[in-house]
């Protein structure tokens, strides 16, 4: 529509209507997505390591506690006690903050771009799942929120020892075992892991694609395959200890 115009090179240009909101490069959709991708992948790497650590539970109390202790002593004497862990924590914290900030910004922008209604902006309800999208892609955002809530709960439970279903203990091993002997604790972790699984099923593919790695149909299949495998590994790997404890295989 031509009524309003915008000035370019000194002439009012009728074909340049409202240039709505100018967005600086560092907050552009592509840069925010890249930041999400990088922070997300850092967290994926952490989760893989964390999962590996958790599996030490099968080697018994000593091994697990040692491992927890080891985490705090790596790098010594170059780093103070707990230094490496703190570095990891800072990196993780920054990642979470960046990730969440970008997620919220993009979410709001997507809502604005769709009149606040996302995929539900059509009156028709004949294609509720769109043409092809995966379930995982639907759950990204609320799944992310679920994970955020879980992390808080999880830290309260196993790191800060604030809540202690099944009994408090100074030994991480005991805390874990005590907790997972209770069915609803296991259930809550299972739900969280489902959220993480879906999040990563889509997130890992998406992260690589956003960073420019999806260059062909074949590559797309590979990346999706990778995402599925990593998501499965993480979910299964994390759930092995709780269920083993619940079922009494580890005590």
């Amino acid at each position: 529509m031509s009524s309003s115009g915008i000035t370019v090179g000194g002439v009012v240009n009728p074909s340049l209507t409202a240039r709505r909101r100018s967005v600086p490069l560092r907050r552009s959709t592509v840069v925010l997505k890249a930041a999400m991708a990088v922070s997300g992948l850092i967290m994926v790497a952490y989760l893989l390591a964390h999962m590996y650590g958790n599996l030490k539970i099968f080697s018994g109390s000593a091994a697990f506690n040692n491992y927890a202790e080891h985490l705090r002593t790596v790098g010594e004497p170059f780093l103070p006690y707990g230094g490496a862990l703190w570095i990891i924590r800072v990196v993780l914290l920054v990642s979470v903050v960046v990730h969440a900030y970008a997620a919220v910004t993009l979410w709001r922008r997507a809502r604005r771009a769709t009149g606040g209604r996302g995929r539900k902006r059509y009156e028709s309800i004949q294609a509720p799942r769109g043409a092809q999208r995966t379930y995982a892609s639907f759950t990204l955002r609320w799944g992310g929120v679920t994970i955020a809530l879980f992390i808080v709960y999880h830290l309260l439970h196993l790191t800060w020892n604030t809540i202690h279903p099944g009994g408090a203990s100074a030994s991480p091993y005991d805390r874990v075992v005590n907790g997972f002997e209770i069915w609803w604790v296991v259930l809550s972790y299972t739900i969280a892991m489902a959220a993480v699984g879906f999040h990563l099923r889509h997130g890992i593919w998406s992260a690589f694609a956003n960073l420019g790695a999806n260059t062909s149909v074949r590559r797309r299949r590979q990346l999706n395959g990778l995402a599925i495998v990593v998501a499965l590994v993480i979910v299964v790997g994390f759930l092995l200890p709780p269920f083993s404890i619940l079922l009494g295989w580890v005590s």
Partner: protein
Amino acid sequence: MNIILRVWRQKNTRARGRMVTYRVEDVSPDMSFLEMLDVLNERLTLEGDEPIAFDSDCREGICGACGLVINGLAHGPKALVTTCQLHMRSFSDGDVIDVEPWRAEPFTVIRDLIVDRSAFDRIIQAGGYISIPTGAAPDAHAVPVPKADADDAFDAATCISCGACVAACPNGSAALFVGAKITHLGLLPQGQPERHSRALNMLEQHDAEGFGGCTQIGECTAACPKGIQLDVISRFNRDVLSAISHRGD
């Protein structure tokens, strides 16, 4: 066959719109979807009603003017066709068919099923070209282009600027459209000098128009009548990131 249409009617940008139901009888399966609307419009006109406004021009799937959301899907249920190439044989007798305009905040509804897609032109203005003054070109054979690159560039260049990708994207992103142009020009030797600035400028305009970001959901490529593949979005992102990393140079 007989069908029931529920069509979005909206008198102008400011007016409130709503779905209106029409019965259309004796529809031939050989009709295109738009011809079926033409027939309905003839009837509405004779009844003194205002015909349903929709865009179309070439009616052979190439100009990109047409575009309706049919039963919740951009360009309707059939893959790889534009609305004008969708034929009634894709539907059956008695079907209820919902017809709506593209919806995205940058695509304001002008009337009924017509939206304003000028944002796309402005994105191209921002950098979707190769700067070559008329008459200054070297001989066409001066720069050979590997066939594979030429073919890939071509695939991306087939985008008809219809906007279905935006209409289908849950985030209202135009990443597929932008990516298609960036890929087309970025794969050719002629497009190299402006590759970085093009990506940054087109991105800036894309965001300024109010399109959402891409979450790699892929509805866009499923709706795209020209089958533009998702890798164009990745190439777009890659060009942006590489432009940023070269900024200091």
